[in-house]
């Protein structure tokens, strides 16, 4: 009985031991299983999370790219539409995306390295041939467009000017110079055709006395005389720069100097001036970001001029060889045989003497074409242009 009991106790002891062991190993397994579950959840959760982050990110990138492309394409259509009709002005609501315009003056007959883009998207639209005078950045809800046609005297093409309501243009003339006042007024009146542009006309003394700062982001001062006095103006938080039409007798053909905010008082010798030819080019200088931007666009304009001149010259030859009594009209001043100089174009490095060479070539071309046309009208013959 005692033995039996002891055996039973022993048995109990062993079974308890096994139970504890079992319980321990079970606990261990449960712990491992719980840990495994957590690891499993963590890995699978990470994979799912990564997957959704990846899908979301790529979707966002794609949709941004798509939106930028669409906006850019729409803007391009708007600009093409604006360029098609001359003397048109509009103020278009656009998505508030920063537009960047670039135009590098190193051009060839194939066009210029020029484009417009939506900032930080990498999406851009090349504009190697489009004559487009604009600031380098437009960050506004509205885009102001304006077109004027460049004539020599035949129509060469439309110049497109772009700006935003954030830009303010201040025309300044010298009270003592009648020519300066006349030119400033002429251009001011032309600018008034576009009701969306903020443009103001001041004499130098008025500017010093009455100028008030506004909330415009950028102010461009346009001087129609070789200004040489330093004066201080309160322009508030606005940025500013200056362009100077410094010829003694400013006209629609002349020289212009671009000055940045830091160069504002370094006037005097007007070194770095470049030529403009025609009212439309003068307006182009006012809208251009800087000297390089203007040179680039003038280069494009001269490429167009060369091509259009070829067309009118060939047209004059056809008119000359056509049957009838009009043939002699078109050889007036040898327009049909006129050749442009081999190096015709807007120079990359504009020198003082370049102005007179280009001006005389353009004047000869224009006056010959005008004479031929007038003669044709007088003799009831087909017009040249």
């Amino acid at each position, binding site marked *: 009985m005692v033995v039996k009991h002891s055996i039973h106790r022993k048995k109990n002891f062993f079974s308890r031991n096994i139970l504890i062991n079992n319980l321990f190993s*079970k606990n261990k*397994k449960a712990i491992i299983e719980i840990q495994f579950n957590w690891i499993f959840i963590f890995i699978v959760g990470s994979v799912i999370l990564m997957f959704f982050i990846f899908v979301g990110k790529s979707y966002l990138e794609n949709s941004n790219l798509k939106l930028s492309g669409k906006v850019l394409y729409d803007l391009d259509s708007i600009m093409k539409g604006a360029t098609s009709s001359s003397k048109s002005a509009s103020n278009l609501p656009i998505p508030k995306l920063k537009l960047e315009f670039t135009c590098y003056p190193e051009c060839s007959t194939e066009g210029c390295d020029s484009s417009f883009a939506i900032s930080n998207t990498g999406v851009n639209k090349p504009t190697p041939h489009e004559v487009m005078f604009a600031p380098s950045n437009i960050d506004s809800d509205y885009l102001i467009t304006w077109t004027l046609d460049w004539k020599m*005297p035949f129509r060469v093409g439309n110049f497109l000017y772009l700006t935003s309501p954030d830009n303010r243009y201040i025309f300044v003339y010298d009270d003592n110079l009648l020519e300066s006042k006349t030119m400033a007024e002429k251009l001011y009146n032309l600018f008034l055709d576009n009701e969306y542009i903020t443009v103001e006309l001041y004499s130098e003394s008025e500017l010093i006395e009455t100028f008030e700062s506004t909330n415009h982001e950028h102010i461009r001062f346009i001087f129609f005389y070789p200004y040489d006095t330093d004066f201080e103006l309160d322009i508030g938080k606005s940025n500013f720069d200056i362009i100077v039409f410094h010829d003694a007798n400013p006209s629609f053909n002349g020289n212009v100097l671009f000055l940045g905010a830091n160069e504002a008082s370094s006037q005097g010798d007007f070194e770095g001036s470049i030529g403009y030819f025609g009212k439309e080019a003068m307006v182009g200088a006012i809208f251009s970001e800087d000297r390089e931007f203007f040179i680039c666009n003038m280069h494009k304009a001269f490429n167009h001029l060369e091509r259009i001149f070829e067309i009118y010259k060939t047209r004059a030859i056809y008119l000359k060889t056509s049957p009838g009594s009009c043939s002699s009209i078109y050889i007036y001043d040898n327009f049909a045989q006129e050749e442009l100089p081999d190096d015709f174009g807007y120079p990359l490095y504009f020198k003082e003497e370049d102005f007179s060479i280009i001006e005389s070539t353009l004047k000869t071309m224009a006056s010959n074409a005008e004479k031929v046309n007038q003669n044709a009208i007088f003799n009831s013959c087909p017009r040249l*242009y």
Partner: protein
Amino acid sequence: MQLTINKFQRKKAQLKIGESILVLLIFFILLTIGLIFYAKVQSHVSEKEMDQFNAKRTIDMALAVKFLPELQCTMQATEEFDCIDALKLRAFKEMMQNNENPSYRRYFARMFPNAKISIKQSFVPMGVILPPDLEEGGVLLFNNTYTGEAEATGIQRLSLPVTIYDPITDSNSFGFVVLDTYS
């Protein structure tokens, strides 16, 4: 007895893991089906957008052709809308065929990429103003197509009515600017 319980518990745990994996598998299968469906819908939308883009491109090009100063009629340097000057057109053709200066050809190739543009005289009251050089009649302005007709996924044709003015005879005739854009 304990071993049987252990085995049973292990099997239960395995079953649990299997169940989880199965759930995940089904989840991923559903996700893949969803993605495939989304991709299909997106590609359909993209195709539609591409068609719209091509239609827009065609209209833009047509407008550009109509307003080309190289072709447009002018009266004292003021342009006349929807009018093509026949003499300018001849001069333009000559310029495009001039191999000495291919830059003009390249300029227009860039302006009107993958497109064929011709001008067709449709009504001839006073004789032929434009001697046709195409089989179907009409004067070919440019053929900048780099996609062959066979490879093109779509060809869009747009005909815009214009008047063709002959300054020598001082006569007008009706015509079309025919624009084929390839995609």
